Structure formats: structure tokens, C-alpha cells
């Protein structure tokens, strides 16, 4: 990174540069102390031995037996949840914009309810409900439970994303549709929805990150064999290399989500620049706000 002047400080002169150098040194010493402490405690517990890390680089079986199947499950659960939650969310979002007060109230209650409850609670409920009321085999039940929990929660978040996307469109769009004699349903399906889909693409992609992260709950609490759940059997089979396993799993999650985040921001920048669009974009940052009960997307 280059030393560039921002609002908060001037272009550094000679004294400021010396001061910055001093701070850099102090911070470096602090950071080095922390790193040294971490490395020392890792070494004391034999976690740095090459044999504990080697399997990930030299032994293809770690990847074939543990990591790749687990990654596949993570991706499957996240993709399924997204694909099911999206139409459900779109429906809820549209119902919440209905002209009928009762429809609005019902959709609103559903959305606010599921946004206020932790995903883990929904997953635990789904898991128990499937085992009590259905014939789903215990092997596939965790996947069902994880996806159901994710769908219930994320459909309500996506409902708000969709609503924000529709509300962000310029009012002229609805006016023009009315002017050429379209009915309400037609306005929605032919004019508003197609445009709001583009407008909310960045928010949708960044919501996918939230979904990917939440699949790990299934691994920890429901016995769903995703990435996090692969840590235990892996470290049991490769000489208690817990730290190495966690590092690899974390790196995979970070790489996957970082790719999604970067893609979402790129998409947002591109859409905001685009000349053909209406200029309505639900940004990446919006997802955080929409995931919170009682918070409403701004009407423009």
C-alpha cells in the first residue's frame, strides 16, 4: 500500500514520515511478538511438525476422502438453499408490497418472525420435525434439516432484498407501465421484476456468502458431513493435526467466500456504472441491514 493522503491526514512531511516509521516499527514489534508467541506455543505442542502438514501437500487421499466430498456437501447445501429460498423470498417480498393490507400483514409477520430467530434454532427444529413427522432416512436428514433451516431464514432475508430491489426502481417505471394500460400483475411481471433482479444481483451474491458460512452449523450440531465436520475424522487419521486441519478448512472457506464477495462487489460497480440500467442497485452492504428484524429497506 502506498502512502496516499486521505481526508484524515495530510501528505506526510519529514516529521510525519519519521513518526509513521516509528509507529510502523512499534506495530511490527508487537505483531512479531504475537506471532512468535503463537509459533512458540504451536511448536511446544508439536503442531508445527512437517508430518502434520505434509498430508495436505503430498497425500491425495486427504483431499479425495475428506475435503472434496465435504466441500461438495457444503456447496450442495448452500446452492440448494439459495435456489429454494430465492423464489420463496421473491414471493414473500412481492406479497409484502401488495395493495391488500391483510396480505401485507401476513407476509410481513412471516418475514419479521423468521428474521428474528437464529438459523441454528430453525435447523434444530427442522431436524426434529423431520425425524418425528417424516420417513426421511437418518442419513439424509441432516442435509434436509440444514437446507430447511437455511431456506426459512434466508427466504425472509431475500424477501427484503427483493422488496428493496423493487422499491429502488424509479417510480417512472410504474407510471409508464400504467400509462400504456398494464394491470398491476403485468407491471410486476413484465416491468418491475425483471429490472429488480438485475438491481439486486450484488445483494444476492453476497447473501450466498452468509448461506455458505451457515452450512457449518449443520456440521457442528446436526452431523451434516460438510467441511467443518471433516476436521475431526481428518485429524484423527493424520496424527492429531487439529491446527493444520482447521487452517486448511478455514483457507478453503475464505477462498470460496472471498471469491463470492469480490464477484458481488465487481457486479455492483459494473451495474452502477452501466448506462442502460435504471440506476437502481441494492448494494452488497444492504444484506447486513436486511438480515435484521425491524429494519426496513429505505424507500426512494
Amino acid at each position, binding site marked *: 500500500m502506498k502512502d496516499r493522503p486521505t481526508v484524515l491526514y495530510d501528505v506526510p512531511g519529514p516529521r510525519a514520515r519519521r513518526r509513521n516509521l516509528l*509507529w510502523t516499527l512499534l506495530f511490527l514489534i508487537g505483531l512479531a511478538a504475537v506471532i512468535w508467541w503463537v509459533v512458540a506455543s504451536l511448536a511446544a505442542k508439536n*503442531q508445527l511438525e512437517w508430518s502434520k502438514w505434509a498430508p495436505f501437500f503430498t497425500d491425495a487421499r486427504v483431499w479425495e476422502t475428506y475435503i472434496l466430498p465435504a466441500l461438495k456437501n457444503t456447496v450442495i447445501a448452500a446452492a440448494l438453499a439459495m435456489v429454494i429460498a430465492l423464489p420463496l423470498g421473491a414471493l414473500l417480498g412481492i406479497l409484502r408490497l401488495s395493495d391488500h393490507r391483510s396480505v401485507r400483514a401476513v407476509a410481513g409477520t412471516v418475514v419479521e418472525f423468521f428474521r428474528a430467530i437464529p438459523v441454528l434454532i430453525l435447523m434444530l427444529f427442522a431436524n426434529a420435525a423431520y425425524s418425528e413427522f417424516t420417513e426421511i432416512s437418518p442419513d439424509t436428514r441432516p442435509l434436509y434439516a440444514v437446507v430447511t433451516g437455511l431456506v426459512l431464514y434466508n427466504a425472509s432475508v431475500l424477501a427484503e432484498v427483493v422488496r428493496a430491489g423493487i422499491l429502488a426502481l424509479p417510480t417512472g417505471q410504474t407510471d409508464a407501465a400504467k400509462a400504456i394500460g398494464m394491470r398491476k400483475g403485468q407491471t410486476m411481471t413484465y416491468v418491475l421484476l425483471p429490472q429488480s433482479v438485475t438491481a439486486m444481483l450484488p445483494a444476492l451474491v453476497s447473501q450466498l456468502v452468509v448461506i455458505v*458460512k*451457515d452450512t*457449518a452449523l449443520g456440521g*457442528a*450440531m446436526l452431523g451434516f458431513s460438510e467441511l467443518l465436520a471433516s476436521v475431526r475424522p481428518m485429524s484423527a487419521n493424520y496424527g492429531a493435526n487439529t491446527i493444520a486441519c482447521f487452517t486448511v478448512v478455514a483457507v478453503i472457506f475464505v477462498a470460496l467466500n472471498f471469491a463470492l*464477495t469480490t464477484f458481488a462487489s465487481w457486479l455492483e460497480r459494473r451495474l452502477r456504472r452501466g448506462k442502460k440500467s435504471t440506476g437502481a442497485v441494492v448494494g452488497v452492504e444492504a444484506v447486513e441491514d436486511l438480515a435484521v428484524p*425491524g429494519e426496513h429497506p429505505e424507500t426512494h
Partner: protein
Amino acid sequence: MFDFLQGYDLLGAFWVTVQLTVYSAIGSLVWGTLLAAMRVSPVPLMRGFGTAYVNIVRNIPLTVIIVFTSLGLFQTLGVTLGADRFTTINFRLAVLGLIAYTSAFVCEALRSGINTVPLGQVEAARAIGLNFPQVLRLIVLPQAFRSVVGPLANVLIALTKNTTVAATIGVAEAALLMREMIENEAQLLLISAIFAVGFLCLTLPTGLFLGWVAKKVAVKR
């Protein structure tokens, strides 16, 4: 109908949830503010560290972080955070994990607040000879905090919901009790409704109250 509740410490479980939330909120506010200060500071190394921390931690699932504090920090490295009882250790580890995760979001919220402070104010502050720490402490952060009460409230509510993840390492909070009750009792719908309402009671008032506070303290420009 509610006979089965005897023998379960429902209030105690939710009290643990509240405690987890409060301790983690305080911790991540402090650490998140420090991170935000680093991210806007004139020292490139600090900026780099802040950026790297936020980008890495935000993309790791909280569950991975919490399970790591138990399996990695405690069981492998023997970190106990000064506690000797097993339950206390897990509680403190969960708080540590929640702070590490939530502070990344606090940092981002604060940084967006810093951006709302008008240029002229900072220029004026620099013109009367305030240095960077003073500009940040006296001029920018007080206004930034007032403008980000809303976003910080969102982080707090997300944190409240995220405390359930502590159940993965056996902290006796609401989600863990819910699992135990579901296993032992044949009242699935009732139990789920109780816990759902419990969380509604925790999150909705917080959101409404802090939303009101946000409107009240916002800097009118």
C-alpha cells in the same frame, strides 16, 4: 401443558445467552474501534493489518472460529483464559470467538460512519493543528459513532442470534437447551415456539429501541 418445563432451567439458558451477548458486544466494540482506527490510520502497516483481518475473519464461518477455540486453542494448545472449570473455559472461549468475529463487522460499520463526516470538519481540525489521533478522537469518532448507531444495532442483533453458535462447544445457552429438550420431550412444536418467542423478545425490542436511539442521536446535516 407446560409441566414438562420443570427440571429445565429455561431462564438460566437465556440468561447465559444474554451474558454471551453483552460480554461479546463490549469486547467487539473495543477491538472493532481499534481495528477501524487502524484501517484509516496514516501508517500503511496498520492499514494493511486491519484490512487483512477484516477480509479474512468476515469470510470464515463463525462456527469454524468457535469450534476452533475449543478444539484448537483449548484442547490442542491448552489455552484456558485463566479459568479452571470446564464450563467457564468454554464460556470464555465462546466470548473470545464471538469478539474476534463480530469486531470485523463493527470495524466495517464504523468505517462507513467515518466516511459520513464532512471533509470541511477534518480540514478545519487539521488547520487548528490537531494531529491524527486528536482528529480521530475529538472530531471524527464522536460523530461517526452517532451516525452508526443504526448499523451497530444491526451488528448487535446479529450477535445476539450468533450466540447460539456457542452451543457447538457446549456452552449451556438457549440453543443447547433447546436441543436437549427436543431429545427428551415429545413436545416439539411447543418447545420450538418457546425458544422462538424467547429470541423474538431479545431481538425485536433491541432493534426497535436502538432504531429510536439512532434517530435521536443522528447528526442532522
